[in-house]
């Protein structure tokens, strides 16, 4: 187990290097000067030159790359071009909101999605068709549109839930939850659809395998065949996609935070992108990659626990 964690951590080093390199190269590869893009059309050549010098863009590319890696290694992600504050601090202050959204959304959609998928795979008939069609439509719903429609229905028409805002969990847990209900619903619906479809396919595969027939042949009741045996095996492929699901949720959070005025990392990225605040986005990308690596590690541990093959070999 410890060896698995160690191996995965070592394997994630190249990913971090690639991400750092990409975030650096993107700035390098663009035609023209990033400084010019940042300052806009009306910038004077002197102003552009000053900003280039400030960002270190006038030095040779290889030197810049090494400087950049050195900075990342020492935890210095630079300062926001917009506010001038330390990128680390800015990202850290915004993380809790996004992480509570993303983690709860992942867990919730895993549980609901697996349940819907199993029911669709085993019941068949009309229910299967309704669930399959429903999840198909769910996958085609744009998160942002769904979010606005939820606000329209539950905040404007029914006045049940607040449309915007966030309360930290420690300040008021109930208010925290109330503010997260709509954003979570908007985020989860699509993920539930995705997980349900995957579970349905995986369950169908498992239910066709010979061991299912053998279990039925000795009189094992249907409930145990489906929920104990088939699902345990179907959960392995479903589990490996939870990492991708987390990436999806992070992407969704960017939009969701905008609609519900939650000041998380997603909103921060959008603000930074509109203002060409490159250091901040670089910081966000690096932190998010680290989060994705952490989630994938959890997924690996889950797979390890579920599959005896992975445990023995």
């Amino acid at each position, binding site marked *: 187990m410890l060896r698995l964690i160690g191996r995965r951590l070592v394997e994630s080093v190249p990913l971090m290097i690639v991400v750092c390199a990409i*975030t650096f190269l993107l700035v390098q590869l663009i035609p023209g000067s990033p400084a010019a893009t940042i300052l806009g059309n009306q910038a004077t050549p002197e102003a552009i030159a000053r900003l280039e010098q400030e960002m270190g863009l006038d030095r040779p590319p290889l030197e810049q790359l090494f400087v950049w890696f050195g900075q990342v290694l020492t935890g210095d992600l630079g300062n926001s071009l917009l506010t001038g504050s330390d990128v680390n601090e800015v990202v850290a202050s915004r993380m809790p909101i996004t992480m509570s959204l993303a983690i709860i959304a992942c867990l919730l959609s895993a549980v609901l999605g697996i349940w819907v998928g199993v029911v669709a795979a085993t019941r068949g008939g009309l229910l299967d068709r309704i669930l399959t069609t429903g999840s198909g439509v769910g*996958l085609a719903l*744009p998160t942002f549109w769904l979010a606005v429609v939820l606000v329209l229905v539950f905040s404007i028409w029914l006045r049940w839930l607040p449309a915007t805002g966030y309360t930290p969990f420690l300040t008021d847990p109930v208010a925290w939850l109330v503010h997260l209900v709509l954003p979570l619903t908007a985020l989860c619906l699509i993920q539930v659809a995705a997980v349900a479809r995957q579970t349905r396919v995986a369950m169908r595969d498992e239910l066709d395998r010979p061991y299912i*027939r053998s279990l039925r042949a000795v009189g094992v009741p249907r409930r145990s065949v489906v929920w104990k045996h088939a699902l345990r*095996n179907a959960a392995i492929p479903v589990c490996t996609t939870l990492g*991708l699901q987390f990436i999806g949720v992070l992407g969704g959070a960017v939009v969701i935070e905008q609609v519900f005025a939650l000041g998380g990392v997603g909103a921060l990225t*959008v603000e930074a*992108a509109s203002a060409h605040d490159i250091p901040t986005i670089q910081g966000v*990308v690096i932190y998010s*990659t680290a989060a994705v690596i952490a989630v994938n590690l959890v997924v690996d541990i889950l797979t390890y626990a579920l599959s005896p093959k992975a445990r023995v070999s």
Partner: protein
Amino acid sequence: MTHSVAAADPAKMLAAPPAHRFRRPDTRLVLGLGWIVLLLLGALLAPVVAPHDPLASDIGASLQGPSGTYWLGTDNLGRDVFSRLLHGAGSAIGGVLVAIAVGLALGLTIGVVAGYVGGWFDTLTSRIADLILALPGILLLLLVLAVLGRDLTYAMIAYGFLVSAAFFRLARAGAAEVRHELFVDAATVAGVSPAWTLVRHVLPNMIRPIVVQASLTASTALLLQAGLSFLGLGAPPPAPQWGAMVQEASQYLYQSPWLMVPTGGVIVLTALAFNLVGDALTDERARPVAVRDRETVRPEPAVPEGSVLAATDLRVSFGDLTVVDGVTLAAHPGRTLALVGESGCGKTLTALALAGLLPPDAHVDGSVVLDGRELAGASEKELESVRGNGIAYISQEPIASLDPSYSIGSQLREPLKLHGSTAPRTEAVELLRRVGIADAEGVARSFPHQLSGGMAQRVAIAIALTGRPRVLIADEPTTALDVTVQAEILDLLREIQAQDGTAVVLVTHDWGVVADVADEVAVMYAGQVVEHGTVAEVIAAPRHPYTRDLLAALPEPGQGRAPLPTIPGSVPPPAEWVPTCRYANRCTDATEECLLHPVVLADRVRCLHPVAQKEESWQLSSR
């Protein structure tokens, strides 16, 4: 050709309808492609067909609902929503195409080369693809937009780069698989250039998964693009863009909730259309055929004296296809009944029908009586109570018939508890010992993938014995095993039978096994029993020409290099089964009469011209 394939494996037959039947085009494909074509036409002809100028505002008519003039209403500046959506379609579809084009171009070329060439290039590119798939995509796109400025084309190019990893995986897997196939080797030997081989043989094999991936990519690219546009990162305001239009609509939620409908609707429908195309192409599974009840006069089940399990006129059908056609047989305690025949004769389906283990879309007619209880048409609950202690089933794939995720001990304890065991742990180990496993404790702790085939079959038999069954149905229990192991497993079955007085129904195509362990034999051909009797009778003096030909086709020692005798032709697929003799077209004894009159099972044989007994026994003894 397709016929013999379908006939060769009844399991495959269940999965796919016969290829020659006409298939209606998938509704999802029609709807999806229809919408996409409509949208493409709308985008191309927007300047001509749009009823209004997408930018012309009419403040007096702002935020109106749908009307004759404004089909989908107007926005806050009084612009026609329908015209704006039409004009926005171009950039929406254009962006999607850019993403797919970049993804395909990068992913396919590098993937095919990596899969075909292999080696370090393959290792390196595969690793990079894994890395790219693990990146938080939308954040990188935001970085791209921050650096390059507001133009969604850049974002879509970057997205194409990200999804190229998915296309790469498909192309690589396809190329690597095909590389190992013989025809590519043959082509290389024949002096065809590798590049030509790739284009001619490798690409066509990968088309389907790639089209599926492309349609899913189209849907995600569309949603992503609209999302970025919604966030205000697309083209600046007056330009009609779908995502931005939802954003504008969301500003006027109080005044005009209607605006959300057409703006979001067009995005949903388009994404749905792409998904539908992908789904339709992924789902190769046969759509279920309606089960039709046929009017049959059910004969009074004549349960033979002393039998524990008796099937009378058993019929199994899938839709219009009858795959088991009027089988009558009986199993007696302490005796073994063998079901023999070529592949595709319905032996396995008969065995599954006896155990009530047919797939849910199978329709069963006739009667199966176990100890006086009718099983045909019984509910799943009733069957559950019979399975295990009444009837148990052993399959031909020992390892695959064990659940890979649970230990052997746990798989024994669950049915033991079900059948009322008070000390399942010790009983499990005892059962393993009983099936001849020396290290019973060790095996109980291990998992199926750690066992050999023979060991797994012993475990499977132990599991089948947990409920002390009266009837044991064994479907080719030794086919997948080594010859030495085969004999051991047969000995084990014989031993269990001797101790418990179990009735065994043994499905096999191996006359050696029949001669070795069976007491009675039923020869099946094309879903029917064509001959039955004691093993001694049937082997010594087969009466049906099919049985005679099967026995004659056995390789015999001392034949030297003489070609193996075979029966010419193959078992016809169920769709071609005739009411007259089904063996007639392969039979050397067939006359015109055989093609005209239905044949019934009479005096143990279903034949108009049974083999004369004397002559046949003389032939056999003269060998």
